[in-house]
């Protein structure tokens, strides 16, 4: 029972494909196969080809083969990832104000059917579409299985579709582009029997996008000896509040860092 | 046997025990005490012994506490029986055994003072005591009842040892005293003064009057021997308890309890802690006073009864506070009322005998009605009492929630669950920062406020809500992520301090609240963890002494020759008919 030479290993193997190891000599021996997530042992007949089934080679990486009879001989071979079967695509953030530079980033990682990262360089196409307008289309070569992009947000609020594609595969994500800080906050007032009803004109950012409903606008009525405030949310583009004012007062509005115009009211008779 | 003879003969003890079984057996098998204040607490303790007999450290309450802070005997017996009948029925069986032992104990105790006939009436009367029904069905004070029953059984041996120097009595008395201590320490401590004191006194009287063979000095010296041996044994049997109490004396802010209130200033409290426990015995109080004072041998018992009676009145008199000092704020006083009724029973037995002698069937009917109405009123009070335990909450959904999806990696709290907190704790794997045993609390958020369980925080006013706020403030520290609310009272606080409702159970009866940024619970380091040797002692000695007492009682027979007190019949003009 002798093992004449080292086992003859395949020069290249692909995850999920069968492969064969040949040995020389005669008699019985034990074959050990150790790879990423795999360890097996079997009896073999020296001098015959040993068939490694696909289920033992599903994980990409380096595999070590040892054949032991009276002595052990070892060798290793590398199993590469198969063709991409899925694309993992991370896009950040999920929500972004318009007009912000380098605010959106995405990372794509191709994986084969056995969840091995495909490290062979390949071109991944990133496409950003806002409504019907194509904002960006860029082909990026993967480096060590990773391709990424960074870009600025657009000018229009709404859903930004981001697609990463390689060959027939694609992954789609959505980024909500939201209005930026309010711009040119303007208010108007109207006396009612009980109070002053103040409301903003439709609140928009500097790109003309309506500021999202729910955004707080703070109305302040400053009188000589005190003040009244109302934190009112924007609803259907407009924020409104009632303020009880009995003396001369200055009413103003603010949202975030933006101040609006002022209304000056005389004392109520 | 003529009817007249029937009224003048003692009732056989076996018949009395069967009456106790007939009265309390069905009530316990119906699991009536399941809704009491403390039943779930006892079952919770027992459930720990089921799984960790030799490890008294329990992580499920107060982020970890030692069960050596409470005598284990009744819980260990429940744990043993639970292997056959389950925890709840195990509790009921242990409670039933205690209830059956009580008339036996009352009979034996009464025999020290009165003849066999009066003693048998006393024992029969004890079956119907309002205080007993109160403790068993409303308070759920299993250990108090069990320990009192055992202690009453031990006292006649103590008397025999003092007066007859009987070695068998010494051995049995000591074994039963140790067992009583293993069931409940407080009963033993106060029993020494309130029960054993009068017995010692009457032994000295009997010795001086040469009614017994012993001399006064002999009786006293044997009492000292008895006390020393019992003391040493209790020190060993409850060793881990004493060590834990020495290591962590109870320094927490006093927790208010209604039994410490002045009964005259609150009618409902008066009904709860006086009218219901005493029942028809209130009518017998003048007789107890007069007859107890008229017979020299009964005077020690009368004085013991009076002192216990005064203690049972709680804050109605300042005496308990004066005598107990700081302990006054730790103790609850309904147990004193129970003991007072037990001490009154021998004299009440005399009253029953007098009435039966004089009025025969009419007296029998009257006494029977009084007894039945006393226990009936106590059972009715279970539903009429405005302080009754909150209605039973179905906690199955809470338990299921905590036991799934890794929720038990966090701690939880219940609010408005009353004694059902212990039920949740028994059946969930998750741990809580709350608990239903005041003396085991070491977390500063709880000990710095005069409030008991967090689940009942609102009943303790600002102190209770202060403790709850303190705990919620440190939710992240304790990994407290889930709160189950069964009382909308707590919802405003939870809302304002940053908790959100995440689920509802039982058609909205219970709501689950959560806080997002809470990390998983980690072990809270404590110096109260008992070492392994204490766990070994705790798992062997208490149950061991109870088995020893059982063995001695069964296999070491010894007849008791109680002195038949002279002049037990009052002169005809001194009948007191209530």
């Amino acid at each position: 029972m002798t093992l004449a030479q080292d086992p003859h290993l395949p020069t290249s193997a692909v995850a999920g494909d069968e492969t064969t190891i040949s040995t020389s000599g005669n008699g019985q021996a034990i074959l050990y196969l150790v790879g990423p997530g795999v360890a097996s042992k079997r009896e073999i007949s020296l001098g015959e080809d040993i068939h490694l089934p696909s289920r033992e080679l599903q994980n990409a990486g380096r595999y070590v083969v040892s054949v032991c009879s009276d002595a052990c001989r070892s060798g290793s071979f590398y199993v590469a990832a198969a063709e991409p079967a899925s694309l993992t695509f991370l896009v950040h953030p999920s929500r972004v104000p318009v007009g912000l530079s380098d605010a959106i980033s995405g990372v794509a990682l191709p994986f084969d059917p056995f969840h091995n990262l495909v490290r062979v360089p390949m071109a991944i196409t990133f496409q950003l579409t806002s409504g019907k307008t194509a904002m960006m289309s860029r082909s990026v070569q993967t480096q060590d299985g990773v391709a990424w992009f960074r870009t600025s947000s657009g000018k229009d609020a709404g859903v930004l579709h981001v697609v990463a594609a390689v060959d027939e595969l694609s992954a789609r994500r959505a980024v909500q582009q939201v209005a930026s800080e309010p711009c040119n906050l303007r208010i108007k007032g109207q006396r009612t029997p009980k109070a002053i009803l103040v409301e903003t004109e439709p609140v928009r950012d500097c790109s003309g996008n309506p500021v999202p409903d729910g955004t707080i606008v703070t109305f302040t009525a400053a009188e000589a000896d005190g003040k009244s405030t109302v934190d009112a949310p924007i609803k259907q583009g407009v924020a409104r509040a009632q303020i009880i004012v009995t003396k001369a007062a200055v009413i103003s509005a603010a949202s975030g860092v933006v101040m609006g115009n002022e209304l000056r009211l005389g004392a109520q008779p | 046997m003529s009817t007249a003879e029937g009224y003048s003969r003692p009732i056989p003890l076996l018949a009395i025990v069967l009456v106790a079984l007939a009265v309390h057996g069905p009530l316990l098998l119906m699991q009536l005490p399941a809704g009491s204040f403390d039943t779930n607490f006892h079952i919770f303790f027992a459930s720990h012994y089921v799984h960790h007999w030799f490890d008294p450290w329990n992580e499920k309450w107060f982020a970890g506490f030692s069960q050596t802070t409470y005598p284990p005997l009744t819980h260990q017996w429940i744990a043993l029986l639970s292997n056959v009948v389950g925890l709840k029925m195990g509790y009921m069986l242990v409670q039933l055994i205690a209830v059956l032992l009580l008339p036996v104990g009352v009979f034996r105790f009464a025999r020290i003072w009165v003849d066999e006939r009066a003693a048998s009436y006393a024992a029969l009367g004890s079956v119907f005591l309002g205080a007993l029904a109160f403790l068993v069905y409303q308070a759920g004070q299993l250990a108090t009842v069990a320990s009192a029953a055992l202690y009453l059984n031990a006292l006649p041996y103590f008397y025999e040892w003092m007066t007859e120097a009987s070695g068998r009595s010494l051995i049995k008395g000591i074994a039963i005293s140790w067992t009583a201590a293993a069931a409940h320490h407080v009963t033993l401590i106060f029993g020494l003064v309130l029960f054993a004191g009068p017995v010692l006194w009457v032994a000295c009287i009997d010795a001086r009057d040469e009614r017994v063979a012993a001399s006064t000095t002999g009786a006293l010296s044997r009492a000292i021997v008895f006390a020393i041996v019992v003391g040493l044994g209790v020190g060993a049997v409850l060793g881990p308890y004493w060590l834990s109490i020495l290591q962590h004396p109870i320094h927490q802010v006093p927790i208010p309890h209604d039994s410490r209130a002045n009964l005259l200033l609150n009618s409902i409290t008066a009904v709860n802690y006086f009218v219901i426990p005493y029942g028809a015995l209130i009518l017998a109080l003048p007789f107890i006073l007069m007859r107890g004072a008229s017979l020299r041998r009964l005077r020690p018992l009368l004085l013991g009864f009076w002192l216990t009676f005064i203690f049972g009145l709680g804050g109605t008199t300042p005496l308990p506070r004066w005598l107990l000092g700081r302990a006054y704020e730790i103790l609850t006083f309904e147990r004193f009322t129970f003991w007072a009724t037990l001490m009154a029973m021998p004299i009440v037995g005399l009253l029953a005998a007098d009435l039966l002698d004089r009025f025969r069937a009419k007296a029998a009917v009257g006494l029977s009605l009084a007894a039945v109405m006393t226990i009936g009123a106590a059972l009715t009070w279970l539903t009429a009492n405005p302080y009754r335990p909150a209605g039973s909450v179905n906690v199955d959904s809470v338990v299921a929630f905590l036991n799934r999806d890794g929720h038990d990696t966090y701690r939880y709290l219940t609010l408005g669950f009353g004694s059902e907190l212990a039920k949740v704790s028994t059946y969930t794997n998750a741990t809580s920062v709350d608990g239903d045993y005041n003396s085991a609390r070491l977390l500063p958020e709880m000990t710095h406020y005069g409030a008991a369980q967090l689940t009942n925080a609102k009943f303790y006013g600002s102190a209770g809500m202060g403790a709850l706020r303190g705990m919620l403030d440190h939710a992240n520290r304790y990994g407290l992520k889930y709160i189950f609310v069964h009382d909308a009272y707590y919802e405003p606080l939870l809302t304002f301090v940053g908790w959100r409702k995440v689920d509802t159970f039982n058609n909205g009866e219970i709501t689950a609240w959560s806080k997002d940024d809470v990390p998983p619970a980690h072990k809270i380091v404590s110096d109260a963890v008992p070492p392994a040797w204490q766990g070994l002692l705790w798992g062997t000695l208490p149950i061991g002494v109870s088995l020893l007492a059982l063995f001695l009682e069964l296999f070491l027979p010894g007849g008791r020759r109680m002195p038949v007190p002279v002049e037990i019949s009052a002169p005809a003009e001194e009948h007191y008919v209530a």
Partner: protein
Amino acid sequence: MRFALPILLVAVTVGLIAAALFGVGQAGGTVGIAAGSALPGLTPNAGTPEQALANLFTDLQRRNWNRAFAALSKTSGVDEPSFIQDWAGANGSLRTFSNLEGYDSRPLHATSDDAQVRVRLHWATPVGPVEDVRDFHLTHEGDGWKVVWPKVEAPTVPAQVVPVTYLRWDLISGGAEDGWGSRNVDSPHVRIISMNAVESAEGSVVMGEVVNEDTIPAFVNVNAALVDGSGNAIDDESSFDKIAHVLLPKQVSPYRIDFPNINLKNVKNVRMDVKATLVPASADPVIGVMDQKLDPDVQGKSVLHGELLNQSGQTVNIPHVIASFYDSNGKVVWVADGYVDRSLLPQTSEPFAVEIPRTLAGKVQTFHVVVNQYSLGKS
């Protein structure tokens, strides 16, 4: 002995009971919510204004409404239902959850026929102890003093239709089976815009303001850890109820974190940590803060007071006011809060008051008030 001992025991018992009744040794307190009443003949006679008030408060604590109402003067301007509602609250307000725990009274003036007594009422509430100062007028009627209960002006809301543009955010969380890469929605972007650490009478306080910079509501908690010179954490606490936890887009909330019994001199560094999560929320109700003024109150304390105006069509059961106070440089020098014990009915207003420490009163130049709220069934 046959008679002497029973007589002695009865006498001692009666003596002990009398000692407890008349204050020797003081009987223990009862558990929070009391009920029942004293046995007949044991209620002290209302021979003084203070005793009349004490009797009234005892009955009110025990919710003996009939007895309490009977103790009022005939000149009182209330009927029994209004009196009960005034005391016990209505509409799920904080008062409906509260119990009177104690009180301190101080006579303001007294003649043989009438008296004025100022009472500081200590309430136990779900949100902690609340104090309320109230002046009572008493008159001498018959053989005792009676309390004159003022007429109760309950807010009335006329029948009306309030149009509401209902705005809320719902949250759909990704399932556990979602693959890597298809993540949930990002957490809201929240920022601490100011922080100040000061020493107070109770210890150290860290306070400031936090803003939701995002376009969605945020559930916010601010935590702080105090670090000593060696880099060891001394204590960590959270903003607890001194913050509005749900912040709408662009909303600013004050926060205050108390560190009881910690001396600021031992603190080298403060580590701040703001946690924001995405939650379902509603933009309603809108509560205006009218007529805000910083004035001294009757006791000379500096108090920010004003009126909360409910501008929505729903009842706000428990309003909570949080105010930040700024010095002349715009720095937050104090954050204080207070709960309003009356509910805010739709389109009505209720007064509020928030106290600031006497030592800071001189520094405060301006303030900002945020209103937080609890509405039954909407948490």
